[in-house]
């Protein structure tokens, strides 16, 4: 854990109030014991009942229909963002966390427009930009209420689609746009932990992209186009090893922080023809990185840790509930679960 500690760790006294509130809120996060009980329950209704037994109001689901669960999950996410907004001494953290939802909404609305899909759109009702403003911009070309950088991004995507008819390309453009905007914000604030975290996230994402590209047999130059910049490993380095054998990838990452993830993930991929383990190990790595937040009294780490821990809880709840809904074997559900933050 020590290597994530930097000169600003535990020195940001302005985060004292926020960290203290987070310490109390962390008690409502799900531990491994609850997850195990949910997995071992006989059916979906019992799994929901196990969750409700913890008496945490936001995790009490009255129905088990997918649409109800989906709405409840979005409500939990919204509440989490709302709390972070309330306790953050500076506005940049909620902005950074909301950016992902803005780009998700833009993706969904653009795809709906290009494919002529009608409502309801699977969007989030929250984000930095109001959903109505995004709809105005995308469906009616009215950009008066849209930030200029987002306006440029939307127009770029629209022009690209007219030219290429390629929806996947739009996703790539928006993913790259998201990280560009994110790192522009990170460059303007002094938060080494956030930069470290997001750089690691990009590295692991790029490894996953390279693996998927290999499955789809994409060529090196196409891979270079879709890899995300701003990570610790430059895309050209990853593209450079891309055409070598998969085993050589393990050697390439051997001296990096991701050696175990790459080695175990690739071995599993070769044996089971699935990238599930690589994805699970990547998520667990990032979660471990965030666990420093539990030991911090004055710093942004606690808030970021709590936010991602909540997302982690949501992922695990959905995995278990969907597994129970479709009567998947317990072992299969377990393989898809991430570690618990607490």
């Amino acid at each position, binding site marked *: 854990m020590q290597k994530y500690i930097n000169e600003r760790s535990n020195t940001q006294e302005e985060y004292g109030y926020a960290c203290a509130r987070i*310490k109390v809120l962390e008690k409502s996060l799900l531990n491994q014991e609850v997850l195990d009980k949910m997995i071992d329950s006989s059916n979906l209704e019992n799994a929901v009942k196990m969750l409700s037994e913890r008496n945490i109001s936001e995790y009490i689901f009255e129905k088990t229909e997918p649409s109800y669960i989906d709405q409840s999950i979005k409500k939990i996410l919204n509440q989490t963002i709302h709390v972070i907004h309330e306790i953050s001494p500076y506005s940049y953290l909620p902005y950074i966390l909301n950016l992902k939802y803005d780009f998700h909404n833009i993706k969904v609305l653009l795809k709906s427009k290009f494919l002529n899909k009608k409502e309801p759109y699977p969007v989030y009702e929250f984000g930095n930009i109001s959903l109505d403003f995004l709809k105005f911009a995308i469906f009616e070309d009215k950009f008066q209420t849209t930030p200029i950088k987002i306006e440029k991004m939307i127009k770029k995507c629209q022009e690209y689609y007219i030219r290429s008819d390629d929806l996947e390309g739009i996703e790539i453009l928006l993913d790259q746009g998201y990280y560009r905007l994110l790192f522009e914000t990170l460059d303007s604030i002094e938060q080494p932990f956030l930069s470290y975290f997001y750089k690691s996230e990009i590295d692991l994402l790029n490894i996953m992209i390279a693996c998927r590209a290999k499955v789809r047999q994409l060529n090196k130059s196409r891979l270079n186009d879709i890899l995300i910049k701003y990570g610790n490993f430059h895309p050209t380095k990853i593209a450079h090893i891309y055409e070598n054998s998969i085993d050589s990838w393990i050697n390439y990452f051997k001296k990096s922080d991701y050696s175990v993830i790459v080695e175990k993930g690739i071995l599993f991929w070769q044996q089971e023809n699935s990238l599930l383990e690589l994805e699970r190990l990547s998520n667990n790595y990032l979660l471990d990185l965030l666990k420093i937040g539990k030991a911090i009294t*004055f710093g942004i780490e606690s808030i970021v840790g709590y936010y991602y821990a909540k997302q982690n809880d949501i992922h695990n709840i959905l995995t278990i509930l969907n597994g129970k809904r479709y009567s998947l074997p317990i072992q299969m559900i377990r393989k898809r679960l991430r570690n618990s933050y607490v």
Partner: protein
Amino acid sequence: MTDGIILAYLGAALAVGLAGSGSAIGVGIAGTTGAGIMTEDPGKFGLVLILTAIPGTQGFYGLIVGFLVLTKIGIFSGSPESLAIDQGLQILNACLPIAIAGFFSAIYQGKTSAGSIGLIARRPEEAGKAIILPAMVETYAVLSLLISILMLNGISI
């Protein structure tokens, strides 16, 4: 007023001012954290109050030394002693331990208290251990108070 008296006043002012400022900062740090806990769990008020109050003690230690200085130079009797410069300097020096150690220990005790408040938020059953940690910082404030008092007692006027 002699130069010695001015130096003695300066000593008393530093003891009370620096130790009190440190306490104010320390209590402020712990109090902010305490407010965060109580927003979510008002039932923790008792423990939070104790941990928030601990960094306030240095301010009292400074006050004690300041009071002793004023007594020694006869301010309360209405006829202040006439002090030589070396006597004034001795009093000033005697005030420095509690002024300096009081200031810094109060700030760091505030930070430790804040950490302990975080501890009781997660594990209220560990309240005893949570109080011991900031109390350890207190040791150095008490030692400096002791030296300041001994030095003051050793000055003959």
